[in-house]
């Protein structure tokens, strides 16, 4: 019995050695892209594009690996030692965290064009077919008797953008102030029968369980819903103002310097702004930065007035503690109730 065990062990170790050698042989050039949850489809289309481009340009075959999960979990993993060459996130506060830890350059937003965000999206209303409650703009959504579905504003990126979108809208109104904005948002939250665990859970609650009159989510999510549930089930309503959501990307300096992959990482991210990369964004229902392309896809992306976290809230570094940390405006709204 021992002999059999030893034999098996020997065979196993031989197999492992082979696998190890195979790995190191093909690992001349590989990148790990640590990304947020719903970017899966985008990078599934984007990576082959880049591989082809890179092969044509340098003759090098590059291996691209993806990791997707909730964005703040992802950056914590990177901070704890997950060797990501690049991070592609859905909220600047997540990349800021890595900058604070010294893994990413502090001025990462200036290292790439357009605030290091190759594409954008915005928060829209998704209502039932025929818009039975006639929800046209933010004030309709906060009326008593309207049920709003959104993910937890404190714990999810999607929910935070919704919260800030409503806040910003109220600020932009005549006589708008922090006070009126907080009041406006508290009316919005009062209309929420629940806080979904995440963006997709909110979608399931609204579309499948048929709870609520309006779902507030990313514009890009609306298209996914159409693919999943069919176009006849819902309508997309663009409010008069919404928030421009940016998706910052950055090179993890510490890792690329160690692995010697800076050149590849830079090219990988640069390519996001190339015509092919921008077109891929548009096809995934994310607004490209390229204005000509945006025009080409105008039917898909109707014009909407937007504000950004930077121009209205002084950046995530200020918006996050003001609104979402313990004791922030979200907590205040619930203590007041």
């Amino acid at each position, binding site marked *: 019995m021992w002999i059999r065990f030893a034999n098996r062990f020997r065979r196993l170790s031989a197999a492992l050695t082979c696998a190890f050698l195979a790995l190191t042989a093909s690992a001349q050039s590989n990148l790990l892209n640590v990304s947020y949850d719903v970017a899966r489809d985008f990078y599934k289309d984007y990576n082959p594009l880049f591989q082809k481009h890179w092969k044509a340009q340098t003759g090098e075959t590059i291996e691209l690996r993806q990791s997707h999960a909730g964005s703040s979990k992802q950056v914590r993993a990177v901070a704890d030692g997950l060797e990501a060459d690049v991070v592609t996130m859905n909220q600047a506060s997540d990349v800021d965290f890595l900058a604070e830890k010294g893994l990413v350059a502090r001025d990462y937003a200036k290292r790439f064009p357009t605030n290091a965000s190759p594409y954008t999206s915005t928060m829209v209303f998704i209502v039932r077919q025929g818009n039975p409650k006639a929800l046209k703009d933010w004030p309709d959504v906060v009326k008593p008797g309207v049920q709003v579905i959104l993910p937890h504003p404190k714990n999810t990126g999607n929910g935070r953008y919704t919260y800030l979108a409503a806040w910003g809208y109220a600020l932009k109104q005549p006589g708008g102030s922090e006070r009126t904005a907080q009041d406006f948002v508290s009316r919005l939250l009062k209309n929420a029968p629940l806080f979904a665990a995440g963006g997709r859970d909110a979608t399931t609650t609204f579309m499948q369980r048929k709870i609520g009159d309006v779902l507030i989510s990313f514009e890009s999510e609306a298209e996914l819903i159409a693919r999943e549930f069919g176009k006849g089930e819902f309508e997309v309503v663009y409010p008069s103002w919404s928030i421009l959501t940016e998706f910052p990307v950055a090179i993890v300096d510490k890792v690329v310097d160690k692995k010697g992959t800076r050149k590849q990482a830079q090219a990988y991210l640069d390519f996001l702004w190339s015509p092919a990369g921008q077109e891929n964004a548009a096809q995934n229902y994310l607004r490209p930065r390229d204005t000509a392309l945006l025009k080409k896809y105008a039917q898909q992306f109707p014009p909407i007035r937007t504000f950004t976290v930077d121009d209205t809230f002084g950046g995530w570094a200020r918006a*996050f503690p003001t609104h979402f940390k313990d004791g922030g405006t979200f907590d205040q709204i619930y203590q007041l109730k």
Partner: protein
Amino acid sequence: MPSTRSHPARVLPGFSLSLGCALVYLSLLVLLPLSGLGFKASHLSFYEFWEMATGERALASYRITFGASLLAALINAVFGLIVAWVLVRYSFPGKRLIDALVDLPFALPTAVAGITLATLYSSNGWIGRYAESFGVKVAFTPLGIVVALTFIGLPFVVRTLQPVIEDIEPEVEEAAASLGASRLQTFVRVVFPGLFPALLTGFTLAFSRSIGEYGSVIFIAGNMPLISEITPLLIISKLEQYDVVGATALAVVMLLISFALLLAVNTLQWWAANRHHGNTRPSTGGKP
């Protein structure tokens, strides 16, 4: 290998080796992470710790987490006992299938369980629709949390009780009946005392499993502050704010409460086991 029960000389050698193994294993797996938790929390002054651990939101979440877990474990103790009894004592077509079903909550990813339960119990769901017509809202209320935790905890009670029920010979009940005990008396005086320690174990396992449960609960809870936020959600919320220390503060409080409760239940169990032994041994000989 034949296993004989001889007390003075152990058949299997290597007590020191196995004890060493056990200690190292437990230290690596349990003690080390726990002490890491303690270490992180020690970055806080006592005042800060107290502030974080006893905020209005935190207190509400303890009430929900422990209250719902307790309720779910109690429900499971009652119905788990019935399920275990039926599965051991009776034979009926499809018994194997039902027996296998009991393990499902173990195997199912908790998020899947949560999403499924939320869909079933929401106001348009198969079950929720009827509950709603009686004016009972289940999904996205604290009641939904109890439902999810009951689902998660069921196998713990059933699986701990089954072998014990198998060990109780039906002859004992027959003997009780032939000596003139009523059905209720047979259950309360003869069967139940033998089951009680195992029932407590099952209850404790289900209860402690529920306290830490996150994946299934967040999908059905509704997560409204002060109403249906469980403590694990608050911990995640702290982590979302990159407040690791705050998260550990809550975790430490949960651990302390859980530990105190488990200790209490274990003491009760020990007492029950002792009482049971002390009672039955002489009484089997002493009864007329």
